[in-house]
């Protein structure tokens, strides 16, 4: 294989998805095939991208085979490949779960599907980039797609508000991130992570006598990415955005941002800034602690399930961050947690979308009263997701927690682990509340959705079964996945 063909293979997943998007839009403009054609091209694009990611993983996850392309702009290593293996199937799952929403837009649905796929491309670029500017481009491709998706209903005012809020605060966070890049460049003379003279190389070989600018840069990078993954105290946008945006796509907003954001965070911190771990690990520990505490406490007080899940996602951002205080040793544990949590998020929001309507924003908890008798499959799935997020054994959520806490204990962050475990128990309170509503309470008599029997389409049913299967299988036998993520270290 010549180097030239390899160059293309490094971005093959992106090419596959983009080709799918282009074809989808072309066909949509020129024919009347409708949503079936979208499904075909989305499936082909995402399927091909997943396949290419798997190939990348198999061929290049060994450190000896991993390398960079396009002047260190793109990295092909186990880390980036695994990100693709998570992001693209996850996007497919999210599209299945949001299919009802997509088709409800009529012809605009084609753009909706395209935007989701473009966001997935951006997410993968974030994970596979070897250069901070490239990472920023991925971040923007990803984020801008999400801003549009959040307000896609157009007619509903709180969705517009959500989109605007997300856009303004997100743009601000991007600016902060960009300023962080600038400061790191000022301190190290490079925006490239890899290669001779790159950030990692420079910091590994030089002792900075006055590291102030570098530290400020690290702090700003951290803030920018903490915003994306909704870690406290940069989380305030999340509840409003989740509550306002259409339920059919909220799961993707959350899950996608977690995967992409943590991939970027892991690469920047544990590769580019590896030698400064003593500077950023304590800061990260504080962010993790703040996230689990703030997320859990606020989630307890919510009476809208989407707001509750938003705050719970803040807490989960904290749990995932806990793994990263261990540096590269925690990257595998981070992947396990992120991947399984993202699946749980998609499963939970799919149920929410079916119960309260995929275009709607608000999802009051009361709407779930008595769901156990009204819609056993939906209730069982949501219940399982709640147990998973709560970290009950025999679900993937427990293994994830065990993994990240073990990583943190190995680097002597026992206080963070104890705090996390106590917060996890407090978190059970609101996860159990959903189960109590669904199984222990009769639906409140009255008009509206309270006594309705929501029905799931075939696509939704598939999502429910797949997410449940993943949650249980990797809860009972997590070992193959744990082995896999151990191999997914960045170059």
């Amino acid at each position, binding site marked *: 294989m010549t180097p030239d063909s390899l160059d293309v293979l490094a971005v093959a997943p992106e090419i596959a998805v983009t080709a799918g998007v282009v074809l989808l839009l072309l066909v949509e403009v020129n024919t009347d095939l409708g949503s079936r054609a979208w499904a075909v091209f989305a499936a082909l694009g995402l399927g091909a991208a997943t396949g290419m990611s798997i190939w990348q993983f198999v061929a290049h996850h060994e450190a000896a085979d991993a390398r960079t392309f396009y002047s260190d702009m793109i990295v092909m290593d186990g880390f980036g490949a695994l990100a693709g293996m998570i992001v693209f199937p996850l996007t497919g799952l999210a599209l299945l779960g949001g299919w009802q929403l997509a088709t409800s837009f009529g012809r605009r649905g084609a753009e909706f599907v395209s935007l989701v796929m473009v966001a997935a491309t951006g997410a993968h670029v974030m994970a596979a980039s070897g250069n901070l500017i490239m990472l920023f481009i991925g971040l923007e491709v990803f984020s801008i797609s999400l801003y549009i998706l959040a307000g896609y209903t157009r007619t509903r005012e709180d969705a517009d508000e959500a989109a605007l809020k997300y856009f303004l605060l997100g743009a601000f966070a991007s600016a902060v991130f960009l300023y962080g890049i600038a400061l790191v460049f000022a301190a190290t003379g490079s925006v490239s992570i890899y290669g001779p003279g790159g950030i990692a190389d420079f910091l590994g070989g030089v002792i900075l006598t006055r590291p102030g600018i570098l530290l400020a840069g690290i702090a700003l990078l951290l803030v920018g990415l903490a915003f994306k993954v909704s870690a406290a105290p940069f989380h305030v946008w999340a509840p409003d955005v989740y509550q306002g945006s259409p339920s059919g796509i909220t799961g993707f907003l959350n899950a996608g941002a977690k995967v992409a954001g943590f991939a970027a965070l892991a690469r920047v911190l544990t590769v580019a800034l590896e030698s400064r771990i003593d500077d950023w690990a304590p800061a990260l520990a504080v962010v993790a602690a703040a996230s689990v505490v703030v997320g859990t406490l606020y989630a307890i007080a919510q009476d809208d399930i989407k707001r509750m899940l938003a705050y719970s996602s803040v807490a989960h951002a904290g749990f995932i961050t806990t793994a990263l205080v261990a540096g590269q040793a925690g990257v595998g544990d981070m992947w396990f947690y992120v991947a399984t949590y993202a699946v749980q998020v998609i499963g939970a929001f799919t149920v929410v979308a079916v119960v309260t309507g995929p275009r709607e924003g608000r999802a009051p908890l009361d709407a779930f009263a008595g769901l156990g008798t009204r819609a056993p499959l939906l209730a069982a799935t949501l219940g399982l997701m709640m147990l998973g997020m709560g970290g009950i054994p*025999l679900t993937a959520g427990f293994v994830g927690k065990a993994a990240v806490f073990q990583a943190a*204990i190995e680097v002597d962050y026992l206080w963070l682990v104890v705090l996390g*475990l*106590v917060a996890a128990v407090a978190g059970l*309170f609101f996860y159990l509340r959903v189960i109590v509503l669904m199984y222990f309470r009769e639906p409140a008599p009255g008009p509206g959705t309270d006594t309705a029997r929501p029905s799931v389409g075939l696509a939704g049913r598939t999502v429910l079964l797949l997410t449940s299967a993943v949650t249980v299988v990797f809860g009972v036998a997590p070992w193959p996945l744990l082995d896999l993520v151990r191999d997914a270290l960045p170059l």
Partner: protein
Amino acid sequence: MEASFPILTILVLLPVASGIVLLLLPKDRTELVLPVAILLSLLPLGATGWILYEFQTGFGGFQFVERSVWYEAWGVGWHLGIDGISLFLVALTTFLFPLSLLASTAITDRVREYAASMLFLEAGILGVFVALDLLVFFVFWEAMLVPMYFIIGIWGGTRRVYAAVKFFLYTALGSALMFAGILWLAVSASDQLGGPTFDFTELLGVEIARTTQFWLFAGFALSFGIKVPLFPFHTWLPDAHVEAPTAGSVILAGVLLKLGAYGLVRFNLTLFPEATVELVPVLAVLSVIGIIYGAVVAIVQSDIKRLVAYSSVSHLGFVVLGIFALTTQGLQGGVIQMVNHGLTTGVLFILVGMIYERRHTREIGDFGGLARVMPLFAGAFLFTAFASIGLPGLNGFVGEFLVLMGSYLTLPVYAIIASFGVILAAVYLLWAYQRMFTGPITVKENEGLADVGFREAAILLPMVALIVFLGVYPKPALERIEPSVQGIIDRIELTTDYEAPEFGVEADLAGEGDE
């Protein structure tokens, strides 16, 4: 001793498979569910019978051991084994489940899910008793909460939601710190063993610094103490016991509480011996408070189910006192008393359930003179009350006598105070009997009550028989428990400067004999 046949794995998986079978039964044949569940729950009982038969007397180590590595990087493995301490708790579990299912005919709503939850619960409990890998142990320990939570929350009484959530959160909070301790143990083991391990038998070989032992002991003891429940962590218990359906209460009191005491014996005493020896006074004080407090509060209850629930606090106090007496007799008494309490309290809860199904009230004041219309029922109640009080010839006597004797050797003052618990037990149980069963019938609705029926007799008879058997001839049980208990005491003596007093030799309490 390695097992030639994976009987313990089968024992744990049987209830799981049975639960799945139940969920697959045809939807319109709900009348089949309970009979099938009862039949299926006889399978683990049969397996236990085989284990009891094959169990080697006079050997203190683990038997029927199965061991395979699951995930090298974490040091997790499927490691099961059974010894004299867990043997009879396993037997008690498999014995109580068919009977509690048989006592569940009052459940009509979502029977299939109910029976499946019960079987999953059984699997979880059995897993806890036989797991020798701390992570696997913890998985069973936590996973077990889920079916119990649903049993209380869906099929419980009027305040079931409150009770279920309180039960879940209380227990989960306790286990959070234990989980931190388990992780810490596993990770810190890599310094001495060259890799992390959750394996209990390997962790026994790890030396743990003194102060660390205290922290870890506290983390584990909090989790187990909540489960036991030890005063002052008992407040979840009355709610959960009272609100749970009859079978739920039987399992809660009969088996679930024992998990805490079992954990204390299995892990606290062996992994943290120095902390154990030092903290004996703390645990002894808490258990004696539990004995007296539980009994006193039981006296003033007007609800018979609450009375039995509080009596559990008192009885489990005896168990913990026996354990922390750190003598062979005390530990032996503690272990056998766990089984005894499971039987007697199980019967009491079943009797309460039977009377509740007839009258839909549990207020003692709503009854009176029942012995006239229900002589058999009254007899069963009086018999069990005597067993619970510890009348010689019945099982309660064996356990309480051993506990008091064992603790008198090392903790004489506590033993003397604790013995008042026996008297108080007579007060609350016999007074309740007097008010409910003797004298004329005071309430008109009670006149037509039916006595114990055939199904009910089928539930009560095996338990009564076992109560008598263990009271008259406890030797088979005691001689199997003894070597394992002796092993724990030996280990404590080996790793600390504690010396267990010889029975029959005057105890050297003041320590003046040290030369």
